[in-house]
Each structure stands twice: as structure tokens, then as C-alpha cells.
């Protein structure tokens, strides 16, 4: 066990965990933030996507200790303080961009990061930008539409 200090969803966290703990396991089991899902073992599916220091990463392929000192944002941390949804969450809802919901947290976090990088993406940009996230339910189209719509709704807001 070794100590680890970081910020998760704006809250300071200090914890002990084994060196072999993956960030996904740390979030789910130590912090009980179970919105981050694990859908594969090979860094393909993207259900575990979270944002570390502003960048989207696959939390199943990062040691928790590598996040020491970092700021981590998970699906639990992006809604507004009053509980209303983040524009990307809202757009996913309006556009029926989720069915079973399992890929959704990773998909939303990937989309948030994508829009930070590319505030005015095209349809093709979004499809390419989501290549690290798999969805088996929706056929992706409504996800793409949700991201394009949130780009519009966020325009100016986060400039």
C-alpha cells in the first residue's frame, strides 16, 4: 500500500492503495464512484473513460498512482451543482443517445473532452473522435447528433 493524493470531481482525496490498483478500480471500489464502467480488458471499449487533468483517458489502463497529484473528473462530477445536467448529458437525453446506459458514462466523458479539444466539430470529426468508445445499442447516430447539438448549445458558454 502506498499513499495517493488527488482531486476527484473537485474534492480532495487522500487514500492508500496497492501499486497495482488501476484508476478504474480505485474510482469504483475505493471511492464507490461506480459510474465509471469496465467493459473489456484490452483498452478497447472506452466505458471506463474519465478526464485526468483535462484529457480523456481510459482509466482501466492507468495506474491509480499515476494520477497522484492530478485532477480527475468522472461522470459523477460533470452535472451542475444544482443537479441539472451538463449540456452534453442533456443532449444525450434529448437525442436518445443511450439505450442500456453501460457505455454512456465513457461516451459522455469522451464527448466532453472532444468538445474541449474541438468546439465546433463536424459529423466526421465526432465519429473519428469517438473511435475509442464502443456502443452496441444505439448505432452511434444519436450519439453523434447529441455531440453536435451540445457543441451548438455550449458555443459561447465555455469559450
Amino acid at each position: 500500500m502506498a499513499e495517493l493524493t488527488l482531486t476527484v470531481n473537485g474534492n480532495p482525496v487522500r487514500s492508500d492503495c496497492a501499486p497495482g490498483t488501476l484508476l478504474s478500480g480505485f474510482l469504483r471500489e475505493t471511492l464507490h464512484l461506480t459510474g465509471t464502467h469496465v467493459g473489456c480488458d484490452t483498452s478497447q471499449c472506452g466505458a471506463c473513460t474519465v478526464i485526468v487533468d483535462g484529457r480523456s483517458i481510459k482509466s482501466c489502463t492507468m495506474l491509480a498512482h499515476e494520477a497522484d497529484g492530478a485532477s480527475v473528473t468522472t461522470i459523477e462530477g460533470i452535472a451542475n451543482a444544482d443537479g441539472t445536467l451538463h449540456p452534453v448529458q442533456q443532449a444525450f437525453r434529448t437525442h436518445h443517445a443511450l439505450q442500456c446506459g453501460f457505455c454512456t458514462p465513457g461516451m459522455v466523458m469522451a464527448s466532453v473532452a472532444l468538445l474541449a479539444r474541438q468546439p465546433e466539430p463536424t459529423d466526421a470529426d465526432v465519429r473519428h473522435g469517438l473511435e475509442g468508445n464502443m456502443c452496441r445499442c444505439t448505432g452511434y447516430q444519436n450519439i453523434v447528433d447529441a455531440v453536435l447539438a451540445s457543441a451548438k448549445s455550449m458555443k459561447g458558454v465555455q469559450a
Partner: protein
Amino acid sequence: MNEFKFMRAATLADAAAAFEKADDARYLAGGQTLLPVMKQGLAVPSDVISLARIGELAGIAVSKERIDIGAMTRHADVAAHKEIRALLPALSVLAGGIGDPHVRNRGTIGGSLANNDPAADYPAAVLGLGATIVTDERTIAAEHYFQGLFATALEPGELITRVEFPVPRRAGYVKFPHPASRYALVGVMVSDGPHGIRVAVTGAGAGVFRVPAMEQALAKSFTPEAIADIPIADADLTSDRHGSAAYRAHLVGVLARRAVTLAASPAMHGHRS
């Protein structure tokens, strides 16, 4: 994952000392290959030494003739770097096509080259552009660095610190992604630069390799037509469910021609015509 000792090295010397002391240490760069391999139990190191905080491994330096990229530079940073995009867009394209955005936010050039996966993209850039690998002990020319399947010239404990890419007159990279993994089923880098004309192929064989017949033909005429009829022997190429050796050999030809077209296209190199 197995239990191991974890340490964050602050300097190259720290890292080397820790490596020396351990039974079976592994350096951790971006972890995009090492961690999956450890999860599967295929690597069981006693010690994992994180390189993330070593300042000497960070940074990109660009001059007109050379681009130096620190070993811990993430693929996303290479892809997004404005000066690299202007001087050597083929490298931006290559880095921007590795894995997916999340993998590119973690994976590093040094980690990729130290691992030397036969289907990784960076080996094609290093060999195809005639780059030099700089380690904590020496410099290694690309031709001497790659030694086949997951094998490199690195000695145990030796660390890549940066990679120096000479800026070519023109270059193009085209990748045919594996349909599932998105590694290169075949990737071809073609360049025309200070080290002459180079054609380097990744994904098709046990390691990155050059195609001298294409290089000679392109030296005479840097056009896709010049290499249209050059056969690629498939005897030593990889054959698997996603591409037989014959198909990979065919793709080498197609992608090389497309890479030449890209390299010659003013859109890619208008600034250096």
C-alpha cells in the same frame, strides 16, 4: 495484476539506479502496452518505475532541420503540435492515428519505440524518416535500433530520452488499420529527405523494414507510377485472419503509392515547395 513495488523517478539517474537495484524492473511510460500485458499476467515485474516526472524526458524542440521529441511526449501532443504539423505533417498524421484519442493522451513515443510492437506506427516514422534514437547512454541510428519482433538495440535498463527526426523535403504516411485493434495491419512511411528516399513498412512483417527497390525507383522519379510494378515478396510477411501475407504485400504497394501521392501533394507540403 501482480503485486510490485512502484516508484516515481525524478531524474534519469534515479530511474537507472532503481532499475539496477530491482530484480526485474520495468519502466512505465504511458502504460498503454505495459499495463494490458501486466493485466494478462504476461509481464510480472518486481518493480515498476514511472518515468512521468522526469523533466529530461519532456518537451518538443523544433528547428528548420530537426524535430526533437522527448521520450515521454504523448502521441496527442505530437499530433497537435503546430510546428510539427507545418514542417512534418506526415508525423502529425501518424501520431494522430495511433489507437484512439484516449490512448493518444497517455501513450508516449519512447514507450512505443522501446516496445517495438510489429504493428506500431512510430517505428515506421523512425525508420522511414531516418531518425536517431537518443538514450541515456548513446545515440542509435534507426537502422540499428530495430531488431525484429519486440526486439531493439536497447540494453537492459537503457532508457530512450528523445528521438531526433531530420526534417525531410517531403513525406507521407498511410496506414491501413486492423479492423478490431486499430494497430497497423500495414503502414507505410515514404520520405524524401537528408537521408535520401526512404520507404518504411510497419505491420506487415515481424518488425519495421525498408523497401530498397521502391526507394531506388522513387529516387529516379518520385511518383506513384514509378513503384506501381515493384513486386513485394510475401515470404517473410505476417499472415493472420485479418490479412494474409499476399494481401499485406499487396497493401504495401497500394499504401506506398498513396504515401508518395500524399508526400508530393502541395496540400501537405505547400510551405516547402
